[in-house]
């Protein structure tokens, strides 16, 4: 028995080491850049990082990213001046685009079609509208030099709060233990493909067994509708609060949204109050090809082409 336990343990660790090496050799696990909070309490990536974003068990999506000196994934540095024409794309992971090569981003696609414009991509995974407005406000001097600012917004996700606060959960990912775990590519890989989900669920199940059970009262349809309406009202109020707090510049700022998933009340509010927006829903609706990746709902190359086309069309139609 002793022999079995000793040999099994040795084999276990040897296999782990070999797997760690194989995951590294074949680049199966993704790199995750380090995040930080700058002097304005803006959360972003530590500048000048390079790495590869990997999705899927068998590296089905593999792309390089580059964090520039401003702390965002982009092929270029953000150096706005009065003489140039610049466009800033502000948004969440869809704009950030870790799932694409940084030289094949939405910004690059726009620049190819509109060579006179420099596109700055201020995308960061998890940014909601409060994050975006806080970023724009914190770097006001820089953003004042940028001619057009496009802010990506999803009504149901991005307006859950009416004022900016640092998101501690995201920064907790930089805790010493998480940093240590991130050093093992095997752990990163296993986590990304869901191998570590069952143990986590088991722990949760055990906790639930120990914890006293709370009665869950199922909501009826009327109640669900009431909560939905309340939320919609709250989101609209949050939007109003954020645009007034950060002096939303209606002349230069444009929202990027999908009207299919946007509340009509919010859309009519935007129209009535002269907020400009780009609705990319028609581009996606008319597409014969898939617009998202296999593994997640981020835009694939075709989706990014459509987004860039929507922006190009908007710029050429509305701005001289």
């Amino acid at each position: 028995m002793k022999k079995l336990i000793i040999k099994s343990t040795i084999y276990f660790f040897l296999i782990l080491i070999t797997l760690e090496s194989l995951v590294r050799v074949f680049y199966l696990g993704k790199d995750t850049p380090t995040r930080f909070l700058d002097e304005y309490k803006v959360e972003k990536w530590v500048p000048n990082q390079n790495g590869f974003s990997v999705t899927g068990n068998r590296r089905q999506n593999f792309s390089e990213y580059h964090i520039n000196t401003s702390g965002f994934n982009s092929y270029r540095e953000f150096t706005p001046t009065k003489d140039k024409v610049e466009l800033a794309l502000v948004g969440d992971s869809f704009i950030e685009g870790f799932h694409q090569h940084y030289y094949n981003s939405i910004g690059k696609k726009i620049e190819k079609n509109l060579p006179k414009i420099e596109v700055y991509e201020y995308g960061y995974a998890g940014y909601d509208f409060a994050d975006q407005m806080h970023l724009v406000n914190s770097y006001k001097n820089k953003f004042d030099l940028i001619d057009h600012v496009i802010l990506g917004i999803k009504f149901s996700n991005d307006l859950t709060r009416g004022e900016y606060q640092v998101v501690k959960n995201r920064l907790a990912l930089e805790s010493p233990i998480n940093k240590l775990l991130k050093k093992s590519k095997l752990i990163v890989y296993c986590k990304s493909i869901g191998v570590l989900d069952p143990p986590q669920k088991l722990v949760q199940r055990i906790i639930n067994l120990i914890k006293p059970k709370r009665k869950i009262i199922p909501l009826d349809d009327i109640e669900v509708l009431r909560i939905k309406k309340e939320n919609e009202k709250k989101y609209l109020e949050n939007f109003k609060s954020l645009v007034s707090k950060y002096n939303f510049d209606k002349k230069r700022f444009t929202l990027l949204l999908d009207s299919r998933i946007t509340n009509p009340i919010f859309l009519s509010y935007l129209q009535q109050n002269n907020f400009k927006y780009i609705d990319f829903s028609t581009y996606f609706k008319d597409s014969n090809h898939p617009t998202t990746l296999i593994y997640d709902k981020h835009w694939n190359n075709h989706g990014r082409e459509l987004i860039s086309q929507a922006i190009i069309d908007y710029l050429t139609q509305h701005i001289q």
Partner: protein
Amino acid sequence: MLFNSIDFLIFLPIVFLLYWFIFCKKIQIQNLFILSASYIFYGLWDWRFLFLILASTIIDFFVGQSIYTSDSKKKRKIWLRISVLFNIGLLGFFKYYNFFIESWVDFISILGYDLKSTWTLQIILPIGISFYTFQTMSYSLDIYYKRLTPTTNFISFATFVSFFPQLVAGPIERASNLLSQITSKRVFNYVQCTDGLKLILWGLFKKIVIADSIAPIVDDIFMNYTEYSASTLVLGVSLFSFQVYGDFSGYSDIAIGTAKLFGIELMSNFKFPNFSRNVAEYWQRWHISLSTWFRHYVYIPLGGSRVSKLKSVRNIIIIFLISGFWHGANWTFIIWGAIHAILYIPVFLMGRNRIYMNTVVAENRVFPSVIEILQILLTFLLVTFSRVFFRSQSITDAFGFLQQLYTNFSYEAYHHPSGYRMIDYFILLGLFILYEFRIRKDERAPFKFKSKTIRFIAYTLVILGMLLFFDDSIDRSFIYFQF
């Protein structure tokens, strides 16, 4: 509790260590412990059905003793009938009740009467019922045929019935093999344990990598067969052959491997059936414990092949129809059995049903001959064809599938329902076939390499394969649980 779940990954080492360290002093205590572990293992799925296992155990324990102590043949027969009726009754109610009612209603409607089926019930099929009822029946039958002396120890017998590694999907053991091991003192054996661990690893590979990874493709093709061309349908049913093999033989390997950890040797259930050279050889290699059961308790009592050719053919038909029906309460399984009978009979009549009994393909050679390759391909093709019925939800679907195959006879590239690269799966299956061919002589030694380094590489690659094809989003239960 599933073998491929985190629960089992925790359950097994705990039971293993307690079994060998704490409860190893007395065989009775060890058996009581393994019985408790088995009931926990089963009860975590649905504790209510533990009473069924217990009832089956009690009935057959006392029936076995009664048969043994009865002096007249008549009394022995009565006791045997009680056992058979009880076990078949359990199966009949839980597995076949609704099928019989629905078939009766359908039959009446064919005669022109409109009968509304109000007698069908919402019955949950207890997992493993087809397996443990057959196992307990075999005990009574063996005592009846005087092949076995009944045990007087209830705990040992209950452990034999509910031994957790093989409780829910076999192998269906005979008391002469398993019960004798349960009643004997087990001694920890290092080689047996490592062999067990290797089998568990290989079984998990077959389940996670082969069966589970191709399951979404098979499901998609069978669910939407009306939209696909013949080439895709052929792909779907061929992949199903590998899926069901990987699933069930993977389960059996894990079961056999787990039993080894407790010092128990279960019978082999699969011996590389995909390399069979005719249908008879296929049945000597596929679900061996069930085939053996039917041969011992149905085919031979009917006269087997020692009667006239005509009666032998009748016996073969009976065996295959029952075997089909055992799999599920659906006409699809009966037709599947009938197809196998039709495929088996010519082999039997030509006297070729036993020629490959003790040999494997390319026995003393590295590569199979051209003839062997053709034989293997033909057998695979025939068996795979029958699986259209095995996999389809209904007879209508099965015939619809075949009709589509015939009417839409064209080639069309197939794309994975989730958009994954299909080439990955073809490479995987190619390598799997080659590897299985390499180890074809011993189903119990999947990592038989002289070099320790190569063996280590094989373990690592198998685990890497599991990671490369792991998919947490799919249903991970075993196909044969539904039987």
